[in-house]
């Protein structure tokens, strides 16, 4: 990969980050309402993706157990408690 290609890809990446945050106008009205609803579904979706491999299989059991632990304590609505819940997995208590 040439330096020019790295630079172009870096520009594309930064441009995509800056476009909505700094260039495009602030969304308003109904669009803002829709955007305001999106974080929870996006995070739930990202969590789901991390549990499914690119081959379409579920990830390993210990990771599923850790995720289940985090899910069980999710009503507490705390990142710290999520991590504690995930430690219910024996895998996380004693990493190999």
């Amino acid at each position, binding site marked *: *990969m040439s*330096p020019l*290609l*790295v630079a172009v*890809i*870096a520009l*594309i*990446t*930064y441009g*995509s*980050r*800056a*476009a*909505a*945050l*700094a*260039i*495009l106008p602030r969304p308003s009205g*109904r669009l*803002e*309402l*829709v*955007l*305001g*609803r999106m*974080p*929870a*579904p*996006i*995070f*739930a*979706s*990202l*969590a*789901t*993706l*991390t*549990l*499914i491999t*690119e081959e*379409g299989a579920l990830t*390993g059991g210990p*990771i599923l157990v*850790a*995720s289940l632990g*985090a*899910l069980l304590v*999710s*009503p*507490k*609505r*705390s*990142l*710290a408690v*999520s991590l504690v819940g*995930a430690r219910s*997995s024996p*895998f*996380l208590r004693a*990493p190999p």
Partner: protein
Amino acid sequence: MTAMTFTGSARVIRSILITSLPAAGAIAVFGTLYGAGAQPLLGTPMTIASSLFIFSGALQFALVGLLSAGAGAPALLLTAGTLNLRHLVIGAVLRPRIGGSRLRRAGFAFTLLDETFGFAVSAPEEAGADRTLFVSGVACYLAWQVGTVIGVLGAGFSGVERLADAIFPVLFIGLASLAATTGTLVVRALAAVVLTAAVALLLPDIRALAPVIAGALVALPGPSEEAPSSGEDQT
């Protein structure tokens, strides 16, 4: 008064750093995997330069995969464009929470990742979304650079790769629980889980876009909904 403000700021920044630490640690581990995997293909200078300037784990891993399969520049650029589309959506979600001049927001944009987006939208009022985005972004950026260099040097965090694998689902579940402030948002999040699983299984080529596709679809207003009149149902 100034000393009190400084103490308060330091406390807030420390709190943001503590919250970001597990993600930054996992990012460092993935950085070592990236550094070790990319170095034979890109060489040491380009591997380090890619992390310094691109700073996107998903994209950089995809580029290495494509390069190892013999892909050319058009495929790499297309992949970069496609994978970065999600930034338009998460940036738009974050935009109302980030104030200040265009230049200031452009500066913050460099630190926009899935993880820092999560920290920023769920940041307490005292911390502020912009400060959280910046502080957690710097922590993740440094972790990615350190990890890359360690990987390039042929070292690594032996035995913790699988632990790092577990951090991200746990992190995103925790962030989802923070963002799901109402019952309807919980239902929308569960619908997004189903949609994402369907995309990942049935359309694996676009799985990287599944979060924004699912997030947008489940957030759409129902036919009976009027234009917004209050902050209800928002995070």
